[in-house]
């Protein structure tokens, strides 16, 4: 028999954003249900067992963007969330050189001096500029993006807030901001540094998750997107969630349940139930139906609208806008169980350097060439990777003495090109293995014995990521972070405040402002919009304010 229960609000998808929205709604007293198609909650932030005794993060693997305001509002530490900051990080060139990353600014200066004395001062200037821009942008993450075409007092108020902040930072900095927000990360770094290797070290953050190259304008902003987070208030720092990224989702889930919310897993959405332009509930794949006047979708905008609403129920312009929303898969991931720590002959023994991420970026040109392969539909022959050995930070993730490796790889196309035909179906097992070999070749440059250490390796193409998490094309941000898809353009002009043309239907995932990453800001902002509509203004999430 099929069930049919009523709720005040239903959230579709238990990604961290959906859970965040649900938490705020439940805390405001709404009877809230979350439905999730997978058996675990968390979406792209899940910890599971990879191999007997090895716990790993399925997709996202490091934490920094998660907003402090939300951690405090929802009291996540009380539900087990603990973020341990990186102590290191390193970029190797595979020829014996490395450049370490250290949290201590003076140690970092010394490290850069080994490669270029001139770049030491450049680093100070670079760092200060990036941090100033981060401070500028941070408050906007937890505010709605104003609609510049609107005359509503709230939109005008938000625009005035923006102008006021620009006025406050001064004309010189506004000029720098225009430049920084629109430049390519390659050009930006070229302005500061002389050493190719130093530039290559910093460039990675400008391309992670995008379908752009280091010389595409707009990638400096992507770097900002990766720097604007913090770990316990330490700006730009990255950290590692104890128990892997699923710990964040688990904490959110526990907070939700304490607030009276319900979560139903293995409950995939069939379609939204819509009557006369209004959402009235959801129908699951298994035939169950739930009713609610408010439905929030954590799925990306394309999936939500094109797969589960139906074009006939929507204005043509809106459908068109959603169709052209760019959501390009560009990255894959390898999760590897290791029987022992691989050797890194070029690195000092036992350094703190191992408690951070590893890359093998030799030059900006190498990174740009990796992008060129992808444009043509191939994975990069010399890929960029961001690798982490989480067991160096949290040894409980694997049996004693054993290790775990997470390798984020870019670029890998969603629609792989085989003989001129581009399709996600081209990702056969054989192709996936060939892709993995290419990544192992690259890894071998920095840890030559990696292949002998592997007990088990899971290889994921963008097509696999789409299949598991539902991220369209495997795009990690639920949509490219280019200006035409940011702020009031995200996900569609005129619908950037979490609303859709369907009354009561909201979009609360990373497709919305301020975008992807395990940040929870879209989820919180969306909850604010929903609660405002309901007149529950006292229960709304904290609005971030000036911080300088």
């Amino acid at each position, binding site marked *: 028999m099929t069930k049919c229960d009523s709720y005040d609000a239903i959230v579709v998808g238990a990604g961290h954003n959906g859970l965040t929205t649900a938490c705020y709604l439940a805390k405001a007293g709404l009877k809230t249900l979350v439905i999730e198609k997978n058996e675990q909650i968390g979406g792209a932030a899940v910890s599971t067992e990879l191999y007997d005794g090895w716990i790993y993060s399925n997709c996202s693997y490091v934490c920094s963007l998660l907003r402090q305001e939300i951690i405090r509002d929802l009291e996540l530490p009380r539900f087990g969330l603990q973020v341990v900051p990186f102590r290191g990080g390193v970029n190797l060139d595979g020829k014996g050189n490395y450049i370490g990353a250290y949290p201590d600014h003076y140690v970092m200066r010394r490290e850069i001096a080994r490669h270029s004395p001139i770049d030491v001062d450049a680093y100070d200037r670079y760092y200060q500029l990036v941090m100033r821009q981060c401070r500028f942008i941070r408050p906007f993450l937890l505010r709605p993006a104003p609609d510049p075409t609107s005359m509503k007092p709230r939109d005008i108020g938000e625009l005035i807030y923006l102008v006021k902040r620009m006025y406050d930072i001064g*004309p010189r900095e506004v000029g720098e901001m225009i*430049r920084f927000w629109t430049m390519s990360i390659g050009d930006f770094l070229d302005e500061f540094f002389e050493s190719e290797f130093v530039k290559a070290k910093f460039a990675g953050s400008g391309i992670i998750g995008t379908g752009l190259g280091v*010389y595409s304008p707009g990638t400096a902003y992507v770097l900002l997107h990766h720097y604007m987070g913090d770990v316990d208030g330490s700006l730009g720092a990255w950290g590692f969630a104890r128990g892997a990224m699923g710990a964040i989702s688990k904490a959110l889930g526990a907070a939700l349940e304490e607030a009276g919310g319900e979560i139903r897993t293995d409950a995939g959405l069939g379609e939204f139930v819509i009557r006369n332009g209004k959402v009235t509930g959801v129908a699951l794949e298994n035939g169950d139906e739930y009713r609610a006047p408010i439905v929030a979708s954590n799925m990306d905008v394309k999936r939500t609208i094109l797969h589960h609403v139906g074009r006939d129920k929507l204005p043509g312009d809106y459908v068109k806008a959603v169709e052209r929303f760019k959501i390009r898969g560009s990255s894959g991931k390898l999760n590897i169980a290791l029987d022992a720590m691989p050797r890194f002959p070029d690195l000092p023994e036992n350094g703190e350097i191992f408690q951070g991420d590893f890359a093998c970026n030799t030059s900006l040109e190498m990174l740009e060439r990796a992008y060129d392969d992808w444009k043509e539909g191939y994975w990069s022959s010399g890929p960029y990777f961001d690798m982490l050995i989480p067991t160096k930070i949290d040894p409980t993730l694997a049996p004693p003495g054993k290790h775990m490796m997470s390798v984020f790889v870019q670029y890998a196309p969603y629609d792989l090109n085989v003989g001129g035909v581009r399709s996600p179906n081209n990702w056969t097992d054989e192709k996936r293995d060939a892709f993995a070999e290419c990544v192992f070749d690259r890894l071998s440059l920095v840890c030559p014995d990696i292949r002998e250490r592997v007990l088990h390796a899971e290889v994921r193409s963008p097509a696999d990521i789409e299949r598991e998490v539902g991220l369209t094309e495997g795009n990690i941000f639920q949509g490219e972070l280019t200006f035409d898809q940011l702020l009031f353009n995200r996900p569609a002009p005129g619908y950037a405040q979490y609303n859709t043309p369907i009354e009561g239907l909201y979009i609360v995932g990373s497709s919305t402002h301020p975008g992807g990453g395990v940040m929870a800001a879209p989820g919180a902002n969306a909850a604010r919009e929903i609660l405002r509509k309901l007149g529950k203004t006292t229960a709304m999430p904290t609005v971030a304010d000036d911080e300088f």
Partner: protein
Amino acid sequence: MAQSEKRYDVIVIGAGHNGLVSAATLAKLGKRVCVLEKENEIGGMARNYEIADGLQAPRIAHLLYNYNPVVARELGLAEKIDKAPISTIALSDDGRHIEIANGALRYADGAEHPDAAAYAEIRRKIEKFGKLLAPLALRSPPDLSEGLSLAGAGEAAAIAKLGLELKMFGKKDMREFLRIVLSNIYDLALDEMPDGEVAGLLAADAVWGAWAGPRSPGTVFLLMYRYAYGADPSLPKRGAGAVVDAIVDVARSRGVEIRTGAAVSRLNIKNDAVTGVVLEGGSEISAKVVMSSLGAFPSMKMAGPQHYDVETVRRLRNVRAKGMTAKVNLVLRQEPKIGGVSLAQIAGRFVIAPSAKYVERAFSKAKYGEFPGAPVIEFVMPMVSDAAQRGRYLLSAIVQYIPYHLKGGWDDAARDRLTALTIDTLSQYIPELRENIAHVDALSPAFIERETGAPGGHWHHGELSTDQLLTVRPVNGMSRYAFGVRGYYLCGAGAHPGGGVSGAAGRNSALQLLKDGVLS
């Protein structure tokens, strides 16, 4: 000390069209102006030259894209220049070319094209948005630091007016503008049509002169800049050089003195104010104001870095100007024949960019300093209708992407490769071209830099990208033409609003210096 010559109010360095427009604008108000040009010819990148005896050819620039009607009207050029928009033929590999004439797109054989409506809509949008932005090109960029001062109020009003006009568009177009203004032409075109000649043409028109491929964000803005006064370029009788000649006439009639073969080596500066210039031979000329039509960095070197603070020098050094465009002029013995093109169509503009991917691939090679496998080419045959040329024909081609920073450098062999690559590519559409060639001039970006002084041989003297536009052109803090030292001004393509044969930079800088009161 060498003898100081007669004293001028203003010296303009460089007789490119912008320098000439500055001079003519100031002379109209009775200022004594002298233009100094290092070459023996006047006109810079926009001049004509004698390519073979008696045969005139456009040296570098050949078409007018964003020729500014306001500047032309102010100078009284309009009557002097015989110009009308020309049609464009986008060449296709299969011989079924596409023609755009009078704003409509169809196959060159007259048949309807499936993407005509999509093209028309993109063109309408870009022209409309370009027109919205056009007034910005005719004023100094807003100075953010003026804040709420009286001078700042004017700026605020200008911005407010722009905002108002944007609102008048109605929500739909306003939103569309804000969505696409910083985006890339590749997606804009391919969202509406399959990849092919039409998308290729839009891509090519967006990237001429730029160190950017169609996939690079910012290329839609470049298309707006180019289409601001209409999407179809025009080919004046006797080429872009005719524009220069007309400006020279006006300038001279107003008493402007133009000296050729007079290369400026540095500025004379006393007490942080300009007093004149020193020529390469050592002679000095004094003036209250010096305007430079060179790029920002060479202009700074001319004054001497000691006059600028460290941060400014750093910014100026970082101005990106990596030229990607070469010029190849061919003299032909007979009228060339292009399959699938009628006699009437041959007077148009031809573009070789069979798809947006083709354009991107050419860029993908050149960005590493390599020759593209197949370059993007725009060519015109300006003299085909001109019987006076005694049976000789001219083919003027802009070839992109040809990197300034070529691996191995620009030696004779590299220039020969440029020639060969151009001829090979053209020959695919003009079968008997090779046997028909009487003479070739291939100008690499490095050569263009040497000849005109434009940094990197760059079309705009400095990349026209969002981070080098408006308030941050040429660099943050120096956007209003005044260039660091009292009495020193920029007036060329490197300044706001950028290059192309438009004259806007020359005009604006002259008006700004009058407003600044440095001549009183």
